[in-house]
């Protein structure tokens, strides 16, 4: 019994923290406005340290543990993703401390609840639990996206996300119910595969239909083509802090389920005439559409939204490789993507705090207004485009290597070519920052200590993973085997 409770200590702590923040942060005035965010950040830091500390103490151990009636699986994968989500939440809330519009207890409490949802998504090993966790995270995000009620676009973004998101969840639930029926009443994903293989062919139309529905739901979460259409609008309208975490942790959480469900064999082994083809096609389309659409954007958030679509395409390559190596490189990629993308959005938060908008032209002369922010953005862009010494290079390298080792060299080639297309628009941003002048370049952009620390963390993460990727990669490789039953 004790192990069951120990396994969910981080989630319990997050919920307690959310409750405290909710009460403590009600109608903050004066000095207390910043204190809400700072308190949340310290709280998340404690949870993060406890999580890491517990892993050293042997929770989770080397052997995966199925707890709470098979709903919750505590293993290495859960741990890696927990660390990833908590880092994302920590950095985002640190940067949000100084955003006036968002200095409310509710905002931070919702971020915490969404993080609980993410953690549970990474740990879920039962289709019912998957759905519950997904909704916990999603419902929090519907509100987070519409939080800035004084802006016309923010509630619109929240509403859009809600309508599409609810529909996508519904479709996915429908697909999951097929699985339940086909397997003869099985809900545990590790048992599903065995149960299905007794009843039904891996390429039967009805299983394909279930796969299409389920993949559709997840593709929506990770914004892969053709379910990406919501992301530019929502990213653009939502407060930037929300976008930062939506584009990283939320995407990573989607992938954690994606990986678990498919690698556990819940839908049978991959082959050229079942769901595997869908994933490959989605991956290629995401890369192509994401990169080419990003070229034409003038709004930085929309550009990053399309870039995020393309990044989802790269990660799907890791999934399509369908191997230990593929899974571990996908996790590595997600990890470095969290630091990279939050760094880019974090800089944008500080810039748009001053300029009031988030167009690319707002970045004009940034290197003169704040050399520090320009440097962080430079590293974020280098990492996104995959240029050493930033982390993105090894992220892509590991993914492509996994694909080649699995025999899909053509998929890797498409990925590489796409990475070159992407260079164009990432470098374009560097031009805005370092070359273009603006009328306001003598007005410096204030960077508070909290934001400076958060962005510093991102930069350390990007450089550390770019120069010494071996440590994290070994870790992800050792946990990736836990995906398999």
């Amino acid at each position, binding site marked *: 019994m004790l192990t069951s409770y120990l396994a969910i200590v981080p989630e319990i702590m997050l919920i307690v923290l959310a409750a405290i923040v909710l009460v403590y942060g009600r109608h903050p005035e004066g000095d207390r406005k910043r204190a809400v965010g700072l308190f949340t950040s310290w709280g998340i830091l404690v949870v993060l340290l406890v999580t890491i500390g517990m892993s050293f103490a042997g929770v989770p151990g080397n052997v995966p543990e199925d707890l709470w009636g098979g709903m919750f699986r505590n293993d290495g994968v859960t741990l890696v993703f927990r660390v990833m989500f908590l880092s994302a939440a920590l950095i985002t809330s640190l940067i949000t401390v100084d955003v006036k519009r968002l200095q409310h207890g509710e905002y931070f409490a919702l971020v915490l609840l969404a993080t609980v949802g993410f953690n549970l998504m990474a740990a879920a090993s039962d289709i019912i639990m998957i759905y519950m966790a997904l909704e916990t995270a999603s419902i929090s995000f519907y509100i987070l996206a519409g939080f800035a009620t004084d802006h016309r676009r923010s509630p619109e973004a929240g509403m859009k996300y809600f309508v599409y998101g609810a529909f996508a969840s519904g479709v996915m639930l429908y697909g999951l119910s097929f699985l339940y029926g086909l397997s003869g009443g099985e809900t545990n994903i590790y048992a599903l595969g065995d149960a299905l293989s007794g009843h039904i062919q891996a390429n039967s139309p009805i299983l394909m239909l279930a796969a299409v529905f389920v993949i559709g739901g997840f593709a929506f979460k990770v914004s892969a083509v053709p379910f990406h259409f919501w992301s530019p609008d929502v990213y653009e309208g939502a407060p930037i802090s929300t976008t930062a975490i939506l584009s990283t942790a939320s995407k990573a959480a989607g992938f954690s389920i994606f990986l678990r469900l498919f690698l556990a064999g819940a839908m049978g082994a991959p082959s050229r005439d079942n769901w595997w083809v869908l994933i490959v096609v989605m991956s290629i389309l995401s890369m192509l559409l994401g990169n080419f659409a990003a070229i034409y954007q003038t709004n930085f958030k929309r550009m990053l939204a399309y870039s995020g679509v393309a990044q989802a395409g790269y990660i799907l390559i890791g999934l399509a490789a369908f191997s230990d190596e593929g899974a571990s490189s996908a996790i590595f990629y997600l990890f470095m993507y969290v630091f990279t993308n939050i760094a880019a959005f974090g800089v944008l938060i500080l810039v748009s705090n001053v300029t009031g908008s988030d167009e690319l032209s707002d970045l004009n002369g940034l290197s003169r207004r704040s050399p520090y922010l320009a440097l962080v953005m430079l590293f974020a862009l280098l990492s996104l485009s995959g240029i050493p010494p930033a982390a993105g290079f090894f992220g892509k390298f590991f993914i492509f*290597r996994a694909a080649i080792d699995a025999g899909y060299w053509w998929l890797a080639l498409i990925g590489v070519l796409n990475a070159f297309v992407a260079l164009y628009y990432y470098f374009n941003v560097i031009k805005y920052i370092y070359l273009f002048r603006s009328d306001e370049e003598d007005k410096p952009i204030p960077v508070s200590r909290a934001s400076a620390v958060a962005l510093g963390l991102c930069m350390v993460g990007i450089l550390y993973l770019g120069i010494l990727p071996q440590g994290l990669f070994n870790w992800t490789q050792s946990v990736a085997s836990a995906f398999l039953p």
Partner: protein
Amino acid sequence: MIESGFPFLSVITISPIVAAIIMLLMPKERGTEVKVLALGTMILGLVLSAYVYFGYLGNLPPADALWADKLAFVEEYNWIPSIGFGYIAGVDGMSATLVFLTALVGLGGTLISWGITDRTREFYAFFMLLVAGVHGVFIAVDGLMLFFFYELAVLPMYVMIVIWGWKSRREYAAMKLTLYLLIGSFVSIIAFLVLYFQMDTLGVTRTFDLRVWSELQFPFETQVIWFMPMFMGFIVLAGMFPFHNWSPDGHVAAPTAVSMIHAGVLMKLGAYAAMRMGVQMLPEGTVYWMPFVIILTTINVVYGALIAMRQNDMKYMIGYSSVSHMGLVAMGFATMTLNGFVGAGIQMVSHGIMTALFFTIVGIIYDRAHSRDMTVLSGMMKPLPWAMVAFSISSLVSMGMPGFSGFIAEFPIFMGIWEGNALNFGPTPNTFLGLNPAAFYDIVALLSVLGIVLTAAYLLRAITSVFFGEYNPKEWEDMRPILPIDKVVIVLFIVCMVAIGMFPNVIAPIVESGVQPVAARVNEAMANTQNMQTVSDSAGQAVSGLIRFLSGS
């Protein structure tokens, strides 16, 4: 093989990067301190690389040793063992020479930009990064590390041209340059990674260590497919036809010091990397493609010189002249003979110093006369006698006058082509388009010698119109004499060119030692893939006999 406890090569490469970081941390007003720091770093680099160069020269490895055994000053650290990536630095004869050249031109560039006032700190910081990138490529014995430094060398060029370049063309030129070079290097890196992932089919653990690569034999088909992407991707940076177009624009738009580094060493970077990664790693592909490549290089040499004749802007003229002369380097590779490789190696050094000097002079004249137009300038000998002397000497080097480095460089290349004429691949050569070297290398030799005549023509024309003729003191009222610091640079470069010309022994043996493994691999590949026949090529033998007679051997 020289072992040493002190990491010479790493210090040479990393010290400019450290200097750049220190510069960026210094306050903006400290312009002088920044310059002194840059000068100190460059002098340190020059001293250390001179030690490396002369250390290697005095201790040459045996001629027939493997490449891996010829490397000296090796430093090796594991970095990411699971993918076979390590920090491995080392030099052979060729790269030791080029490291020395880079240090020399870097010092010259630092001195010549002493008068810069616009954002001094950033200028020198980027300049240091550029130098570090170039050094890094030359010392890299790990493929991934080579690519990393290659990008590091290319990217600062963009910033330097855009911010400090010639106002009317800089954005266009910088973008053009960056696009050409980045696309080139991406094509190469794709080829490189494809080969990397094929290594396990050869029964070798995947690694980026070039010492392992230098003994690999990829299947013939693989080599044929991937040689051109690898070679062409890099040789773009050496201004190879038909991808030479970025280079004159880049030269013209760049500030003087950047033009010097650019023409002086950056273009060598392309040639060096093309030789190291293309020719050495894929010798059978080399044999398949080189008879075709030599046609491109011939166009390079002749066409480049013809365009140079048409220019009125001195910088454009030098830029096209660079294209023409770098064509000779690639032509040296394409002869597939040891002499050709040696000539190409020496030509890299000779051209590096010569062009750096050319750009120095043009920069000096432009600073004072505010024009580079040869139809406007006239009688510059009067106010700037030093410039005239230096320009004339560079021109003599450029024309390949005996007694200067140009001769030592170009003569072996032409000799190599004649020797190449004796390579008969039989009636059905296993080469692109079935080209047989024996059939047309003599024509190539004749045409490329024409390039020298054209060089003489356009350079003498430039000297006549710019330095001689009437000098009108009223038109150039604000003419200043040459600074002592400029004289130091001029003397430094001239001494090097004369020293190489007079005492070829200071460079020929070390370069030869460096290119021997490459040539040996190409020869071996030739024997493997071609049905070699010896036919008497009387015309070729007569000419090469004549050349031997004239050269007294």
